[in-house]
């Protein structure tokens, strides 16, 4: 199997869908001619292959980019637009939240808006809090949007294909650090359904629900804990909306313990949603308090040691899991 990074996997998905379907086009800032000419970037080489008709460089105008997607999609095109960094979503937010997400409902189901908004997210790039600010919880709290946030190259490719083929607005959030991390990706055409979580590692003692970049730390922590005799089941959410409650509940029913791990700040993060679902629907199975591991409630700081401090790490996961393994069963 090919070993490629998430950046390359996204690139493959875009190319293959653009080849398959003439209605698919991409637009955004630096999508065609950008400042980076790096094959690990998702839009590398698209302009060369598909030309200026289908690869649209736009001005720095996030509201217009999002509006372009809304209008083009209602006409039957399949726009895949990029909002460069997650915090710039704020500028496109009216188009995405009040229009992309609501206009189908407002039409009484007559219209559809098959669009994808790709956004880069994540800390660790030394750009500070106006570039790094994980806002997936916002998007997940907006009926009418699907929200996808892959953690591996293979998932990214398969899920982006589904997103492009989906008849609804899909928000597709890519962690920038993962652009450079390789992983196995099938050569053949495949897609992964939106709304299905993936048990990335089975285990019996505790369920660790996570997504996107934190998957890496989850794996490392689980490996260490295994040596202590604690068996961690890693559930990679992959899709936040629609949420795969079934997979989560099944796992917690088995393990009786839940830890939720995400990079976004703690208060109001999507971890609360997972905790609430489990505290309501699998309460009787719970043997220990539900733990959330998340960034502290601060903007992403710039200084290297501070930025590292911001990101939840392996050690915190290990300690949290040890703690709930010790907490008395109720």
């Amino acid at each position: 199997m090919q070993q490629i990074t998430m950046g390359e996997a996204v690139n493959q998905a875009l190319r293959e869908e653009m080849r398959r379907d003439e209605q698919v086009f991409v637009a955004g800032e630096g999508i065609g001619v950008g400042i980076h000419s790096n094959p690990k970037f998702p839009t590398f080489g698209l302009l060369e292959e598909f030309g200026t008709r289908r690869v649209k460089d736009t001005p720095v105008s996030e509201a217009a980019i999002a509006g372009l997607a809304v209008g083009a999609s209602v006409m039957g095109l399949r726009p895949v637009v990029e909002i460069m960094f997650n915090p710039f979503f704020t500028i496109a937010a009216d188009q995405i939240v009040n229009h992309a997400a609501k206009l189908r409902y407002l039409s009484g189901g007559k219209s559809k808006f098959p669009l994808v908004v790709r956004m880069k997210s994540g800390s660790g790039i030394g750009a500070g809090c106006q570039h790094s600010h994980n806002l997936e919880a916002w998007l997940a709290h907006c009926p009418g949007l699907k929200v996808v946030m892959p953690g591996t190259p293979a998932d990214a490719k398969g899920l982006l294909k589904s997103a492009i083929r989906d008849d609804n607005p899909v928000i597709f959030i890519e962690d920038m650090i993962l652009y450079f991390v390789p992983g196995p990706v099938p050569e053949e055409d495949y897609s992964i359904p939106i709304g299905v979580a993936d048990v990335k590692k089975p285990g019996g003692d505790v369920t660790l629900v996570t997504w996107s970049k934190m998957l890496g730390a989850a794996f490392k922590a689980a490996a260490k804990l295994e040596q202590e005799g604690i068996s961690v089941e890693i559930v990679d959410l992959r899709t936040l909306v629609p949420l795969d409650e079934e997979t989560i509940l099944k796992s917690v029913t088995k393990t009786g313990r839940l830890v939720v791990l995400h990079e976004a700040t703690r208060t109001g993060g999507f971890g609360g949603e997972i905790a609430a679902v489990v505290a309501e629907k699998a309460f009787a199975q719970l043997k220990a308090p539900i733990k959330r591991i998340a960034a502290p409630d601060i903007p992403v700081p710039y200084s290297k040691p501070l930025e590292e401090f911001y990101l939840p790490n392996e050690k915190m996961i290990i300690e949290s899991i040890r703690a709930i393994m010790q907490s008395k069963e109720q």
Partner: protein
Amino acid sequence: MENPNQVVLLETMLLIRRFEEKLEALSKEPGKLHGMMIVCTGQEAVAAGVSAALEPQDVIISNHRSHGHLIAKGAEINLLMAEIYGKRTGYNKGKSGTLHIAVPEVNALCTTTVVGGGIPIAVGTAFAAQYENKDFVTVCYFGNGAADEGSFHEALNLAALWNLPVIFVCENNVYSGAQRQEEHTRVKDLADRAAAYGMASQIVDGNDVQRVYEATAEAREKCLAGDGPILLEFKTYRWGGHSTTDHQVYQPKEEIEQWKQRCPIEKLKKELLGAGVLTEATWQQLNEGVMKQVEQSVQFAEESPWPDVTEALEDIFA
């Protein structure tokens, strides 16, 4: 393009007028309508004139003051009225109500009550025409107030840059909520903003339906020839308050009266009577026919069933 049938234009304006008057009346009857109503009384010539220049495949993007735009584009008033009542038989099954009625049947694809929110969307529908090399234009309606939103700026710049077939229709009715134009911007003519994007523009008397038609027809031809986009500013006036709950303390009575003297319907009526195209009798007929249609739409709406509450959960995802 051939001149539109003048009597049909008159009838369209009259239908809009009577529809809006009815809504104003209904909004005063307690328990009839849900929420406030926003009507376009006095501005009928813009919608009627613009749509007279359009073909069915042309797309319109509308705003909170949409009833006229929709009726002129061919929406059926029974289904509009039912939507405004919140009934299942309405265009959007009652989910939309008065503020954001979409009528895909006549290519009125997106109506939004977010001021300025439709302008970037029009860029998208126009882009689709260009992308697929299809012969249709997009008309994007918005008010003078909307021209101050950032979305206006981003959208017009992008439309100009890409040469998109879109006609931006700024319906300048003097007010933005309770603010007069001079209270929300220093520029006198919003059409002048087109120059900031290298875009063509034109200022047109928005109470003269024939001029509105001509300007739109010309703009449409340009767009189809690849010489779009264009910004048309139609100068008109909102006879009533912003909405039916408006106390109108800020709107001078004399100003209203002056503009009523320039009623677009009266103007065309006089011309047609003068030209012998219309008689007092045919005018009466027209008016009665329209009134009847409006009454029937109310009856249709009132007799229509409410949506079942669980229908609220439908139509969210395709």
